[in-house]
């Protein structure tokens, strides 16, 4: 395995009874990248992450993480990865410093290394003023910084973040991403799951998951460029009526209202998408303004999941 790849999976699958939570996922995550998992709840993001760190056994398929075969070599891997769970999972009845010391001991950092790293982390994550405070009394943003400080205390090569920002305010989220970029610049590979589009856009590359399957992957730019749909915006129309009408039209993948505009995704197979929409609305709303626009990541996400739904229905 080349040293440039942190994670590689082949047809990774996990079933819970009859439910297929993760269905033949093929991933390639380069080192020192921030790689995103974008998908709604229940799309298999957490299950995939758990399989990659050896917490869940795959039902089928293979995974190689940092050159180690998972789950066979999961115990070796555990020293090299950091993991931040969706909910705060440090001890709320211990103080900041006690939590960090506990984690340092668990990873068997040497005495000098422990002091050094804890001091660095307290400084970096702006926690040094409250080291005696119990973790349970911290704010959401502080808890999250503490969790990241703990997860990266032993300087892992690979960091798993499972919806890390679901419980914090926008400013804390931005600060958090600054930390992530710093880590990536120092060579840490980061796999982060999210359902926020703005976070997904910040990733170097991402995979879109929908009901256990990977429906698209690549850099945000490439994904937007290669979208399987035309993106149309409609203005100056009775938006409500237009929406009701367009939803009935075959080959229209989705219709979303954004303020005074409607954003419409049309199947890629349609050649002249603007003409197609104008034709559809001609009878009821002749004066509408229809424009082809650039796809956003959200469009990519909606198109990928919608197309798959149609394939399923067909």
């Amino acid at each position: 395995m080349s040293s440039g790849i942190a994670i590689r999976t082949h047809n990774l699958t996990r079933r819970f009874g009859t439910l297929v939570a993760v269905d033949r996922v093929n991933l390639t995550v380069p080192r020192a990248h921030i790689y995103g998992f974008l998908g709604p709840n229940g799309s298999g993001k957490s299950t995939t992450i758990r399989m990659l760190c050896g917490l869940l056994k795959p039902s089928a398929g293979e995974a190689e993480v940092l050159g180690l075969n998972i789950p066979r070599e999961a115990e070796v891997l555990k020293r090299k990865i950091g993991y931040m769970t969706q909910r705060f999972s440090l001890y709320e009845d211990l103080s900041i410093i006690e939590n960090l010391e506990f984690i340092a001991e668990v990873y068997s950092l040497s005495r000098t290394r422990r002091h050094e790293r804890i001091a660095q982390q307290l400084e970096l994550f702006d926690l040094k003023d409250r080291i005696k405070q119990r973790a349970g009394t911290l704010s959401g943003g502080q808890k999250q910084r503490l969790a990241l400080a703990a997860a990266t205390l032993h300087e892992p090569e690979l960091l798993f973040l499972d919806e890390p920002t679901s419980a914090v305010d926008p400013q804390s989220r931005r600060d958090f991403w600054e930390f992530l970029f710093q880590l990536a610049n120092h060579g840490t590979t980061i796999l982060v799951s999210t359902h926020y589009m703005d976070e997904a856009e910040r990733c170097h590359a991402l995979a879109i998951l929908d009901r256990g399957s990977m429906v698209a992957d690549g850099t945000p730019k490439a994904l937007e460029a290669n979208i399987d749909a035309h993106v149309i915006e409609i203005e100056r129309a009775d938006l409500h009526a237009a929406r009701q009408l367009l939803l009935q039209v075959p080959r229209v993948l989705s219709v979303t209202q954004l303020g005074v505009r409607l954003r419409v995704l049309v199947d890629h197979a349609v050649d002249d998408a603007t003409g197609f929409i104008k034709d559809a609305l001609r009878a009821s709303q002749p004066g509408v303004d229809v424009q082809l626009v650039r796809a956003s990541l959200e469009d990519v996400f909606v198109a990928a999941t919608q197309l798959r739904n149609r394939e399923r229905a067909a």
Partner: protein
Amino acid sequence: MNSLRRIFAILQKEIRQLSRDRLTFGMIIGIPMIQIALFGFAINTDVRHLRAAVADESNTELSRTLAADAQATQVIDVIAHVRTATELEALLRDGDIDVGLYIPPDYPRRLQQRDRSAAQLLVDGSDPIILSAARQLATLTQHYDSEPPQSLRAALFDIRNHFNPERRSAVNVVPALMGVILTMTMVLFTAVAIVRERERGNLELLINTPVKTVELMIGKIVPYIFIGLVQVTLIVLLGMLLFRVPIEGTVANVYLGSLALIAANLSLGLLISTLAQSQFQAMQMTFFFFLPSILLSGFMFPFAGMPKAAQYIAEVLPLTHFVRIIRGVMLRGADLVHMVPDLGALFAFTAVTLTLAVLRFHKRLD
């Protein structure tokens, strides 16, 4: 080496958390104190001062001595003297007395005849406690035999009450109570301690670290061994101070026996923690186990009196073996060397539950 460090880290964390958890801390001290007070003071199976009447048709030196001896036991208070057995029966039927002592006219001659009982005890058998108390009466006075009425069978043997001559129930209850308290608190504390980590999500973090299952279990269990020993000390001291419960055997044996029970209960707690999904479930399972322990172990009811099926169940429960061990050590001055079968049973229970717990406790989430 790293393994020891990790165990120590978990241990230290556990103690820190424990010292901040006032409820658990209160339970460690509070449960033994409350239980000792309840069982030692309030619940008293030593029945004394039963109301009694004497019908002495013999009226001899010997018969008067018998009546006086019976009174002297304090089991009965003679509140009336009547002339005939019929009057005694009437008093008994009306509930005016609990016990009637009938001494026939030929009492001195009957005493000579070893094949016949010399006197009769008429007992209100409708209350089993009174019945057994009256039996005690028959056994304590050693120089006469009593003939039971048709429906009742008084003891035919002269029973010498060793090891608790005053028959104070606290003496019997306190050593066994130690086992009951350890069973309740040890199983519950370990089960809850681990399930709580799972409920709060701490376990998801821990299983992603190099901490191994065995290390986690040892680190979580060891503090509770000490807590168990603190409880043992507390109960023994309270028993000695409040109820003059003796330690006939060695103190080392008391602690060693207790350690065997603590080990069994902690491993059971671990096993429960691998089965329970929530702290509430862990508590339910603990009580599911605790009830038969209390009822069948011989703590409340005599082991020998239970049906065979119940005895088999009791043999599986650690408390049963501990009750035998601790009564032996504390009351009879027995040495653990002579209690190998019961100790072995505790060790076997520990080995089986611990193995099951380790097998069930995966370091994975599935």
